[in-house]
């Protein structure tokens, strides 16, 4: 919403300076977005006369001018390149030190081709008041020398633009803004009231409204014998000051009413209208050439005003070219109507029309002002164009309902925490157009018709608080209460936080990828269900809610490879989707390693470099699980995993086949190819919800430490087994020999190659035996060792390596 200061003063008697008015507007909820104050910006530019203009001695295109700046001093020498610089010309002068907005420079004293120049004669473009840069400005002979140009030219009217919130339709007109300011003590509101204008004959055009839900009210009147043409200067100036183009008096009146009174109107050239008017839904395929010169194809959702010929106007949005008013118009039909807000918004969006009428109607105009608005417009037409008015035709039942609410005065303190005396409440609300009855504790408040946004008690509190000033509400410390200090994070939040930090300490870097991925990638990772496909994705490759973080992470890794950073370890902890119900959304912790980005570190190094492998991903997954509090002893590792992993270099982490916690391994080459990835990607994914919640102990004290008095004994064994035998089975077999005595089994060597059959491998384990009651004899230890050999041999078919 844009207006000028002088326009505001038509509705508000005030001496407050612009800055104060602007600050107040912002602080009462009408946020000032921009103020354009040409008078201030152009203050140094004054009216001056060229006394003489001689040819520059050293340049063909330049002239040396002597300028009378009107300040009574000696003439000033100015070098000027404009072809129209000539003796006697009245133009605009700026002294050294002036900022020239059109050139974005600050003028200095210059020497141009050997001749000193102490100022500048200016073009309109240099002042940024028009595009005209063909020479310096030419002002009439009677323009007062020495005076400010902007003031003389009437540019001294600052423009104010406010960022209007959608609830304040009443402030889409200057009148409403003035009312708000007057309530905030910024001046006296001028609201003289509107006198009905008596019609001198019945309106010959009748109106039929087919669907009252689309058009709750419609008022029409004919004015015969008008003389249309350019509107008077004051009206043109109003419109141009806010960037509107004057067209002709009748059209300008409607635009003026729109901005002055938040009352959009439409004028038809009555002679171009055939018969009566009908407000109806458009028929599918009907078209209208609108006033913007474009032809719109309509359908049954669009509300139109039609005559016996066809559609003449898009209701509440834009008129039609065929029945528009021009200089030849002698009889004019003025329409003032009410439209369904939702329908206007939908139609405007569908047709792509952003008109001033739509802007107001979709917010909902003051219903009670439909007829007064028509009266005011009629008066303007009679004043500016003459003519004889008909009686009004009014269709519809009730324009604005009486809305009265009970308001307990304590509500202000209760919701806003500020005490406002009743006299002040009354003053504020009355100035805003509310009416109050009673002195409390509960008062009756009648809501004005134009405040369609005000519905209940909280809205009244807002009215009072915004006018009193939110800055007057005292800041009140918020007691945290008697509640004991307890952790506030849920188990999943805690796991999320710890998973991130754990992966970070493993040298991985946290990424944040999109929640949506391509349909192909979603399907590849077990997603792509129809309930997870967006109906309106922002791009074709962001169409599906991700079933896994890995497609996004692989893409991010690949992007880094493409930038020249091939050694990357990225992780993400975030939401994945298995369906559209709340419980289908899970938190995954996932990672991708590529290149020299093993657990040892990023890049090659003399201490040992390693290309990331599946076991790094296993370590990552275990780090997450341990940090998240998983029961590590209970985890089972099953070779293999989902189809998107390398079948021989992947594993599944589970607690029983029913509860899979995660997977890890090398991305399957086919999956890598489908995701556009180069070379092996090492990946893992753990679902944090799958981790069983440990039992909370009643005390924070740790269990009693049971230390043995006897030294542990370690025995090494190396077994030759088939390559397919799992190390985990050997470890478990050894452990199961005596769970009490054997406290640790460690694999310390794995060997394949020379000295071993090609289909075999050697696995060496260290078994720690912890005596409990007494020191063990060699025989007792040997007996345990023999059991270990026997058990491993039995379970794995291996033999003790000689």
């Amino acid at each position, binding site marked *: 919403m844009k207006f000028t200061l002088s326009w505001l003063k038509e509705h508000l008697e005030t001496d407050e300076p612009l800055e104060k008015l602007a600050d107040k507007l912002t602080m009462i909820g009408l946020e000032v977005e921009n103020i354009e104050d040409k008078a201030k910006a152009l203050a140094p530019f004054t009216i001056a006369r060229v006394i003489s203009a001689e040819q520059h001695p050293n340049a063909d295109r330049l002239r040396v001018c002597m300028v009378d700046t009107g300040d009574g001093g000696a003439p000033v020498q100015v070098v000027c390149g404009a072809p129209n610089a000539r003796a006697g010309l009245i133009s605009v002068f700026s002294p050294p030190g002036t900022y020239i907005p059109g050139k974005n420079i600050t003028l200095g004293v210059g020497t141009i081709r050997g001749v000193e120049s102490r100022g500048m004669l200016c073009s309109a473009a240099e002042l940024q008041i028009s595009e005209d840069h063909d020479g310096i400005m030419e002002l009439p002979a009677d323009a007062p020398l020495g005076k400010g140009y902007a003031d003389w030219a009437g540019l001294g009217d600052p423009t104010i633009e406010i960022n209007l919130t959608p609830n304040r339709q009443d402030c889409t007109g200057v009148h409403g803004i003035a009312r708000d300011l007057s309530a905030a003590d910024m001046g006296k509101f001028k609201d003289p009231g509107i006198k009905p204008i008596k019609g001198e004959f019945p309106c010959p055009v009748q109106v039929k409204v087919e669907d009252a839900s689309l058009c709750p009210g419609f008022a029409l009147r004919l004015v015969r014998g008008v003389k249309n043409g350019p509107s008077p200067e004051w009206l043109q100036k109003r419109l141009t000051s806010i960037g509107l183009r004057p067209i002709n008096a009748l059209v300008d009146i409607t635009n003026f009413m729109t901005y002055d009174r938040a009352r959009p109107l439409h004028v038809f050239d009555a002679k171009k209208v055939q018969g009566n008017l009908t407000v109806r839904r458009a028929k599918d395929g009907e078209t209208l050439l609108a006033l913007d010169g474009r032809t719109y194809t309509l359908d049954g959702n669009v509300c139109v005003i039609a005559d016996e010929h066809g559609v003449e106007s898009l209701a509440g949005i834009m008129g039609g070219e065929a029945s528009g008013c021009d200089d030849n118009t002698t009889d004019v039909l003025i329409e003032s109507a009410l439209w369904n807000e939702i329908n206007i918004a939908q139609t405007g969006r569908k047709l792509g029309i952003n008109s001033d009428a739509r802007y107001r109607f979709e917010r909902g105009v003051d219903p009670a002002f439909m007829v007064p608005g028509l009266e005011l417009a009629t008066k303007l037409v009679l004043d500016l164009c003459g003519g004889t008015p008909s009686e009004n035709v009014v269709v519809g039942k009730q324009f604005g309902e009486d809305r009265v609410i009970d308001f307990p005065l304590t509500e202000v303190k209760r919701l806003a925490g500020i005490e406002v005396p009743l006299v002040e409440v009354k003053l504020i609300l009355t100035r805003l157009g509310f009416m109050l009855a009673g002195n409390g504790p509960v008062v009756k408040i009648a809501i004005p018709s134009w405040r369609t946004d005000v519905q209940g008690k909280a809205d009244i509190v807002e009215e009072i608080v*915004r006018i009193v000033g939110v800055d007057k509400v005292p800041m009140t410390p918020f007691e945290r209460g008697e509640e004991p200090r307890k952790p506030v994070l849920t188990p999943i*939040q805690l796991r999320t936080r710890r998973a991130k930090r754990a992966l970070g300490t493993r040298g991985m870097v946290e990424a944040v990828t*999109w929640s949506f991925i391509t349909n192909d990638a979603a399907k590849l990772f077990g997603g792509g269900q129809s309930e997870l496909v967006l109906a309106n994705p922002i791009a074709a490759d962001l169409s599906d809610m991700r079933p896994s973080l890995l497609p996004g992470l692989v893409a991010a890794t690949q992007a880094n490879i493409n930038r020249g950073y091939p050694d990357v370890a990225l992780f993400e902890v975030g939401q994945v989707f298995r369906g559209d119900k709340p419980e289908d959304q899970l938190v995954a912790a996932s990672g991708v390693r590529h290149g020299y980005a093993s657990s040892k570190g990023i890049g090659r190094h003399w201490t040992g470099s390693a290309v990331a492998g599946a076991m790094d991903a296993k370590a990552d997954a275990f780090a997450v699980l341990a940090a998240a509090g998983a029961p590590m002893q209970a985890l089972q590792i099953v070779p293999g995993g989902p189809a998107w992993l390398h079948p021989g270099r992947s594993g599944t982490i589970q607690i029983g086949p029913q509860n899979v916690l995660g997977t890890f391994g090398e991305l399957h080459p086919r999956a890598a190819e489908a995701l556009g990835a180069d070379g092996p990607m090492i990946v893992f994914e753990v679902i944090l919800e799958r981790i069983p919640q440990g039992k909370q102990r009643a005390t924070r004290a740790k269990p009693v430490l049971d230390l043995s008095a006897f030294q542990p004994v370690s025995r090494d064994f190396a077994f030759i087994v088939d390559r397919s035998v799992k190390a985990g089975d050997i470890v478990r077999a050894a452990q199961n020999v005596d769970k009490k005595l054997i406290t640790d089994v460690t694999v310390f060597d794995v060997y394949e190659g020379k000295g071993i059959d090609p289909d075999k491998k050697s696995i060496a384990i260290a078994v720690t035996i912890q005596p409990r009651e007494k020191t063990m004899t060699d025989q007792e230890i040997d007996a345990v060792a023999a059991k270990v050999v026997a058990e491993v041999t039995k379970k794995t078919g291996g033999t003790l390596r000689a």
Partner: protein
Amino acid sequence: MSDLATLEKSILDQITSAGDEAALEAVRVAALGKKGSISALLATLGKMSPEERKTEGARINLAKDAVTQALAARRDVLKAAALDARLAAETIDVTLPLREASAETGRIHPLSQVWDELTTIFADMGFAVAEGPDIETDDYNFTKLNFPEGHPAREMHDTFFFNPKTDGSRMLLRTHTSPVQVRTMLSQKPPIRVICPGRTYRIDSDATHTPQFHQVEGLVIDKGSHLGHLKWILHEFCKAFFEVDHINMRFRPSFFPFTEPSLEVDIQCRRDKGEIRFGEGEDWMEILGCGMVHPNVLRACGIDPDVYQGFAWGMGIDRIAMLKYGIADLRQLFENDIRWLNHYGFKPLDIPTIAGGLST
């Protein structure tokens, strides 16, 4: 010089010139071993008269002691020299560069860090953390929040929708974390104090908008909380979050469907060559929206607005992260350029705490 004296001197000379412990041992054996020269002299004592034995014995033993002492002294010298030589040979190149510790090279994304900062500040003020699903119903995302029918946010050009189900209803991606407030009010009894951080979605993609972004909202419902408390909480939060001693804030009346009265909040700042300082300067920067929860919202969530009251606020996590840490371009938050992450990310052990500070 007697023979004994000559022998003693000869042995002592050999000790002095012994170059290593093996040579020294050879000298010892030659002198004091079973067949050593001094041992041989001692063996002669048995054949001597008691008087002779007394004087000769004393002489020989003196020589033996001298040799023994010299051997021990020389052994110490040689041992020390041998150790020095060994250590010298064991010299390593200590200038070889280390691998940086993983805990130093890993990074936490700025959004996660700021998330932890927010939780830390609000937990200290007594707020719990509530979360909800990204995929929401129209009812929770709009209707219960007092969005009128036909509100532009409910259109396909603003909000991501899924395909309609057979009953005509359609799920959507939440456009704010307010549905979490709804879920909280429906499932808990007041007093309620929660913050709701989470990922949100709107159809918007340009220099300052991404189709996914993150919000943190706050909600307080009880029998006495009002705008004055809201102002205080936000003021305390901004000081704590931006880590400044004082901050000027401006509360402007505004409009949101779900609050009444509604306010927008600006903080005063100074912009200087791309850097923003808070607590100084002349500019105002909008940072969040807030207000008293609209009675219609309370009613829709089963709370009597004449008995209970409360307030809510919401702000962009991405935005406040950018403001605090000088991140210029929103889109980079989701580009995952390793160079950017290494620069703007945080070390994993830099965990925000009240006691140790948020970012120090």
